[in-house]
């Protein structure tokens, strides 16, 4: 027989469970598992701060003004090298530019922003001749006749710079200076008299020299009023150009008449491409080997020995050897550089991984049954992103430098693939001639800007990525 106490407790229990049942029915089960909304005050209670590693890194990086400036320079340079061939008025990098009239190469033209040599006023009479290979251009000159050396002619009017002369049926002006070496009597102003020159002499129609050191100048058609038998008069102030083109060779031309401006940018493109490919391959091989080396204990010993052997050989020697054995070219160069570059990266990754692989969070992860690849990708590599990026940023100038070195010792790219290395090497051969040094200086400046930018940006980024420097 149940006691009163039992009956009472059973009753209460039934009542309580009925009550709970009623309340439970009212609650939709899904609503119980909805994420709470972010509440800033509640968050602050537990010491939450919205610190983000990357935001902080960028913040620190952007405080470094030099690095930011160089970042913009580098970005502008990168964009420019890509779009340069599509800009109007660019010469192809490998095109050998000839003078359309004479067919000779326009070799070693000095750098110039314009092709204009002189400006002729309106109404200047010139001899004009359409240029065969350049539509719409006329080659003009105001030379009416040329005298052979030692031809006798009459000087009818004497001037310090120009003398008016008569020769057969032609009247015109000849230059009177130390180069023409006119033969003058005791009193040259007592005209007319007979004279002659020791050299070939041009007679100009006016006392102005509208030639480029004796060769013809070029004018677009619309500035000329063409007369009969090859004469023309300028119908406006006309700019006489050394080329039948308005596009100058801004960096000059090399010894076979290729446009150095186009070659420098094409070379920058090649060099940067080499740099980027090498950096990426280095990163891929370096990370793979480094992770295996650091994470797989069985491999540690053997990989360490392999590393010690390869690390003992000077990198330069490996580069030289590989480039010597294989056929010179882009692929060989990249291959040789990749062969040595990954070592440093692998060692670095390995050291880092050895440090963090047995930290508590990784142990916990492993105990919970996370697979090794997932641990590596999710737990380990994010730690290393900043160092990987630093090493990649530094290996780009390294690769560009190696390319210069390999080209320098004669194992680099052929000249029809312009690169900063072979441009500098071509320029180096000309340093004895002061007038031609621009062929070395332009590529050297571009190369220095690229390599210094990468170096400084890479270091600034590494500093910024170091949590010690975070606010």
């Amino acid at each position: 027989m149940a006691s009163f106490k039992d009956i009472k407790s059973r009753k209460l229990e039934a009542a309580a469970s009925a009550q709970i049942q009623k309340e439970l029915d009212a609650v939709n089960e899904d609503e119980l598992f909805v994420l709470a909304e972010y509440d800033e005050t509640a968050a602050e209670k537990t010491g939450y701060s919205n610190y983000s590693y990357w935001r902080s890194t960028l913040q620190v990086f952007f405080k470094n003004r030099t690095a930011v400036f160089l970042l913009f320079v580098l970005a502008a340079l990168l964009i420019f090298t890509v779009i340069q061939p599509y800009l109007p008025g660019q010469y192809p990098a490998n095109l050998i530019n000839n003078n359309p009239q004479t067919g000779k190469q326009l070799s070693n033209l000095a750098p110039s922003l314009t092709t204009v040599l002189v400006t002729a006023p309106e109404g200047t009479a010139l001899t004009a001749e359409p240029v065969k290979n350049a539509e719409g251009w006329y080659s003009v000159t105001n030379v009416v006749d040329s005298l052979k050396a030692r031809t006798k002619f009459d000087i009818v009017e004497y001037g310090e710079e120009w003398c008016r002369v008569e020769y057969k049926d032609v009247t015109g002006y000849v230059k009177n200076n130390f180069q023409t070496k006119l033969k003058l009597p005791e009193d040259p102003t007592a005209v007319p008299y007979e004279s002659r020159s020791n050299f070939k002499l041009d007679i100009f129609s006016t006392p102005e020299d509208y030639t480029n050191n004796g060769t013809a100048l070029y004018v677009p058609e619309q500035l000329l009023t063409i007369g009969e038998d090859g004469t023309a008069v300028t119908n406006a102030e006309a700019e006489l150009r050394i080329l039948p083109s308005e596009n100058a060779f801004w960096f000059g031309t090399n010894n076979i008449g290729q446009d150095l401006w186009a070659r420098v940018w094409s070379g920058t493109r090649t060099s940067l491409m080499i740099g980027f490919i090498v950096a990426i391959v280095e990163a891929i091989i370096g990370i793979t080997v480094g992770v295996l080396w650091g994470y797989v204990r069985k491999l540690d010993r053997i990989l360490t020995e392999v590393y010690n052997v390869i690390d003992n050989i000077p990198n330069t020697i490996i580069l030289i050897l590989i480039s010597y054995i294989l056929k010179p070219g882009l692929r060989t160069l990249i291959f040789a550089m990749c062969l040595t570059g990954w070592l440093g990266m692998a060692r670095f990754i390995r050291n880092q991984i050895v440090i963090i692989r047995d930290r508590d969070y990784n142990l916990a992860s492993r105990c919970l049954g996370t697979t090794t690849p997932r641990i590596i990708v999710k737990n380990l590599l994010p730690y290393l992103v900043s160092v990987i990026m630093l090493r990649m940023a530094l290996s780009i100038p390294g690769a560009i430098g190696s390319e210069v070195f390999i080209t320098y010792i004669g194992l680099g790219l052929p000249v029809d693939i312009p690169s900063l290395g072979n441009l500098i090497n071509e320029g180096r051969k000309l340093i004895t001639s002061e007038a031609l040094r621009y062929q070395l200086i332009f590529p050297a400046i571009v190369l220095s800007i690229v390599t210094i930018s990468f170096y400084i940006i890479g270091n600034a980024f590494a500093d910024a990525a170091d949590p010690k420097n975070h606010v």
Partner: protein
Amino acid sequence: MMNYIAGRRMASIRKRGSGRGFDNSMLKYCVKRLASSIITLLIIITVVFVLLRQMPIEGYFDNFEKADQATINAKLEQLGLNDPIPVQLFNFLKNLLKGDLGTSARYSVGAPIAQIIAKKAPVSIKLGVLSMALALIMGIPLGAAMARGKGRFWDKFGTVFIVFINAVPAAVYHIFIQMYGTSFLGISMLFDEANLVTWILPVFSMALGNTAYYAMWLRRYMVDEMNKDYVRLARAKGVDSRKIMMRHVFRNAFVPMIQYIPTSLLYTVSGSIYIESLYSIPGMGGLLVDVIGRQDNPMVQAIVIMYSCIGIVGLLLGDLLMGMIDPRISFVKKEGAR
């Protein structure tokens, strides 16, 4: 190469229980280190040898185009190139022990390579030693000055200098030094062993890389050392700051610099390749560029092996020297890949 420094070895520095000097563990370490160097060298020789056998055989003849098949075969037989590669390698090693590196094929037909190198090496060694000395003379004061006046003129100047030297490929600034230096000194662009003035620029150019390297590391170590407690105490006691610098900071910071000797040796070696061919210095580096241009296989092989030897010996010396100077380094246990 410039990227060679990045992540260059650091001997593992650990506290040692006993403070004994040149003891058993050190001897053991020396022997082990020497053995590993020899094995490395053997591996390198094998690899270089095998790789160079893959080259076209033109590189063994001074007039391949004109030679007929019979002479070619006879020559190949005479050089032992028809043997299987392991036999060739064995013969080469055997000759190597006798100091015979083979004979030149194109550069100086038939001359023993060992003799050619012996004739060329002294200039290279002189240049290398001079430039390494100059680098110390320039780099150490620069690094010290940078650390002392942190943020002041010398620090800024040094930083710009180091960035420039590290970032810009050596070939570029070497050329500019040659171009403007020779006209500044009023000398010809080429080297003349008898004329001491012509030594200045090559030695200076070769020293630049190492100077930047020494200055960079010395500054780093000195700054580290300056932040230590004992320096702070000394300063608090009122010790003259110059005295602190010379007596304590510089001395302690200088010890770890020893480990960069092998690297600077490698720098000098690769620097010599540029410099010697730039100034036409009759040394090993210039010779290497020369024989590469002429595709003289035996010569390339010999010089590449020579250079690897120099590298290995340099690293070995650096490790041993480091051990002798700083007793805190453990020889018993090497951690990982150094």
